């Protein structure tokens, strides 16, 4: 048991805790002459002279200087009629032109009269105001001291001597006072004094008027006011495909050729524009390229980090990456189009005359980039990318195959060394290839992050295809117990981390920064992806590529079960393709800058369609994937599926996630 004193201490503490609140309640309940406490003082009392404050500079210490006697303030000089109530030496009979008669004037006069005059003169002007009454009472009241009260009954304005006074004279009285009455010039502005004078006249009339004097329209004033009110066997049997997959390879090739042929046919018979077809071709080819690039990234990163766990699954990745030595074929149509000078509708910079005719402003911008965006340099760069990719894609596979034939660890060391230049060249080539083949589709647009975004796409496509490949291999009875759920979990993590989370991070950062700065030359690219059906398309990209798979894959269990992981990988692969569609197909409308508002642009492009439903898109996707699969199966059959003599193999086979 805790010592008893603890209980007392706690009870006492609780009691004391109530004190501050009691003090607060007490302070709130009663006024006090204590100065208010300002906790944060800054700028609350500024070192300046406010209205009616002290300024020790002057003898009378007033910050506001009084007007000098006989001085008229600028802009307050008026006619003698207005300022003095005198016309030609006589009291004015009428209102001055500065304060013409109106109902408003009389109403104002009434209000002013009630404020300033009624205290003595009474609301009706009979001299029976409350001050008057009190003063009279004070004089006659013996209950209290009189303190020298010498009140004289206030004048009734209905007294004949006053009733007969002219307007000017009444004005003068108000201004300067008369007998015991003080002047009100300091308290009441000139206009208001005139208004009071006018009201006094009206008051006099009212108390001495008959019904017929009142205009019929004024007898009753029905004012209508409007009531408007206002979302794990390492024998050949297990690690070589052997005869397996021969049919699949042929079938894939067959499907691929059929699909591509069908796509061409559809375009030939006019179901699609050639420009649209070549853009769709670009999209699908770049998609296949990203799969291989993602696989290449996987391979060199394992060497770069001297990873042990991944050895069991590295061969399929090496094979996927080795496809880079033939994927350049998909670029040939563009080579031909560019050489023929007919790529203007795909790469607008390749035909400056056409661009200048269609969009002079954009052409002007692109003109400055001609040193980079020109056909010869474009083709030279493409050649460099293909050479680099084909070299590393095949080199790592060959080095790994060499390691499989020797007990020496030299090839492993060499691969580790080679991973360094591979990483650097990979980073640069994927960046500039994306700039060239995707970013330059809208040649005026630019984003520094675009290369990194393309890398995340490669990660998405590469890792998901690697997972699919491994699962399909195991489904065909090879690699049994070599690839375990531990490897799947790790591949799932990589797909989750790089293909989804990192993708979302890069994508969000790029979007948010452009959205936030809202610079016209940048926002157009995203606007084109928000207009019409593209808005929904983009929303689906966000949910399909990130939100839904995030919730699905965050737990380790779906990553460890091949069925769920296969589903997730297919899903993400599809969205990798979808992402490419989103990158390549939309075109920034040339007239975007002319819309006054975002809503107007949305209205004008409300009918914009994405064309995703067009069969050519799907035929190209299935066709290219099938051909890619066919080549991949061929290579998988040609080589062992495991590097049997890799020094890290044991680590990988024993690997277990903690």
């Amino acid at each position, binding site marked *: 048991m805790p010592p008893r004193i603890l209980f007392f201490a706690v009870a006492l503490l609780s009691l004391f805790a109530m004190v501050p609140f009691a003090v*607060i309640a007490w302070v709130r309940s009663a006024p006090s002459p*204590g100065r*208010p406490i300002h906790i944060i003082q800054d700028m609350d009392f500024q070192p300046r002279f406010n209205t*009616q404050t002290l300024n020790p500079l002057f003898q009378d210490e007033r910050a506001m200087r009084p007007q000098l006697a006989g001085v008229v303030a600028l802009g307050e000089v008026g006619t003698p009629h207005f300022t003095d109530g005198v016309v030609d030496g006589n009291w004015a009979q009428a209102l001055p032109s500065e304060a013409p008669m109106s109902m408003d004037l009389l109403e104002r006069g009434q209000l002013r009269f009630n404020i300033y005059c009624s*205290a003595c003169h009474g609301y009706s002007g009979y001299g029976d105001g409350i001050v008057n009454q009190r003063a009279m009472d004070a004089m006659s009241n013996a209950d209290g001291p009189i303190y020298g009260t010498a009140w004289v009954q206030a004048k009734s304005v209905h007294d004949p001597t006053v009733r007969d006074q002219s307007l000017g004279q009444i004005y003068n009285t108000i201004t300067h006072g008369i007998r015991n009455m003080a002047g009100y010039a300091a*308290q009441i502005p000139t206009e208001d004094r005139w208004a009071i004078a006018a009201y006094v006249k009206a008051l006099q009339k009212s108390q001495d008027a008959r019904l017929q004097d009142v205009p019929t329209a004024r007898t009753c004033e029905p004012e209508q006011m409007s009531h408007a009110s206002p979302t794990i066997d390492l024998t050949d049997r297990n690690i070589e495909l052997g005869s397996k997959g021969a049919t699949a390879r042929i079938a894939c090739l067959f499907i691929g050729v059929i699909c591509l042929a069908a796509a061409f046919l559809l375009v030939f018979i006019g179901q699609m524009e050639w420009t649209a077809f070549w853009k769709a071709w670009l999209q699908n080819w770049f998609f296949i390229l990203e799969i291989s690039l993602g696989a290449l990234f996987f391979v060199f990163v394992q060497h770069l980090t001297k990873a042990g766990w991944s050895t069991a699954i590295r061969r399929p990745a090496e094979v996927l990456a080795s496809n880079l030595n033939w994927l350049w074929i998909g670029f040939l149509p563009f080579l031909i189009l560019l050489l023929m000078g007919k790529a203007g509708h795909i790469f607008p910079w390749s035909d400056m005359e056409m661009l200048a005719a269609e969009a002079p402003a954009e052409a002007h911008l692109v003109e400055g980039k001609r040193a980079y965006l020109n056909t010869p340099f474009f083709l030279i760069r493409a050649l460099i990318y293909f050479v680099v990719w084909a070299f590393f894609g095949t080199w790592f596979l060959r080095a790994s195959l060499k390691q499989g034939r020797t007990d020496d660890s030299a090839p492993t060391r060499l691969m580790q060394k080679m991973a360094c230049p591979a990483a650097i060249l990979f980073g640069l080539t994927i960046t500039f290839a994306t700039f060239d083949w995707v970013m330059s589709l809208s040649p005026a647009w630019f984003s520094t992050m675009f290369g990194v975004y393309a890398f995340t796409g490669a990660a998405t496509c590469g890792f998901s295809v690697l997972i699919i490949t491994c699962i399909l291999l195991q489904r065909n009875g090879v690699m049994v117990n070599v690839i375990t759920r531990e490897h799947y979990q790790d591949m799932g993590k990589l797909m989750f981390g790089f293909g989804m989370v990192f993708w979302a991070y890069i994508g969000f950062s790029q979007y948010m920064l452009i959205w936030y700065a809202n610079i016209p030359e940048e926002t157009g690219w995203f606007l084109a992806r928000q207009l019409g059906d593209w808005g929904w398309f983009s929303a689906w990209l966000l949910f399909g590529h990130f939100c839904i798979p995030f919730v699905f894959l965050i737990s380790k269990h779906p990553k460890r079960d091949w069925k769920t992981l296969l589903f997730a990988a297919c899903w993400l692969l599809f969205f990798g393709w979808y992402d490419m569609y989103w990158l390549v197909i939309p075109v920034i409308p040339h007239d975007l800058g002319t819309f006054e508002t975002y809503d107007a642009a949305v209205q004008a492009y409300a009918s914009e369609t994405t064309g995703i439903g067009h069969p050519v898109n799907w035929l190209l996707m299935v066709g290219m994937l099938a051909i890619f699969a066919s080549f991949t199966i061929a290579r998988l059959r040609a080589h062992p599926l495991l590097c049997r003599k890799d020094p890290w193999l044991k680590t990988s086979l024993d690997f277990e996630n903690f």
Partner: protein
Amino acid sequence: MSRFLFPKWSNALLPLIALVGATVPIYVLYFVAFGFSPKTLEVGYQPVQPVPFSHALHAGELGMDCRYCHNTVERADHAAIPATQTCMNCHTLIKPESPKLEPVQASYQDGLPILWTKVHHVADYAYFSHQAHVNRGVGCVSCHGRIDQMEVVYQSQPLSMGWCLDCHRNPEPNLRPVSELTNMSWGLALGLEGEARDKAEAEFAQQRIEVQNLYHINPSENCSTCHR
């Protein structure tokens, strides 16, 4: 070798510490929320003035209009403290020899102003304009309270930014016909009971809406409205 062992009851003490640890932040929050609020620190300030001027007498009993003395309120941002002259409009004759009036008389003689103590202080970085409010039907009573019942004036409202915003967000309850600006009891339906009271209140509500519509009152909540 002896080794320090925590006593058994220390385990029972831990939940207590957790409880205190959870309570203290809440306690501090509430203490700050209530204790540092202008409603505590500012409201109720009632300085002693150099002249024992009674608003209850002049504005209440005598029913003199506020603007008789604070005559600039409709034309200027500042509601002027009256000049000594204004007092002397009447007090040359009424109780001129009263000891309470001595400072006033002295001021009248030597021309030096009476140093009144400012009660209602809006921070210098906030620009408040009396004319903008008064001419749109915001009555005196809304910010100054029942001056007509105060023998010595005290601050009845917090004059905090949040308090300003409450009205700027929902001005209607503080609107009245401009003619009733200085009427401290307008809208109260005093002395009425039952149906008559409901009827009067409905009428006040109606008039408030009318004023809102008449002046298109849609107060701004932008920073620069007050801080400029």
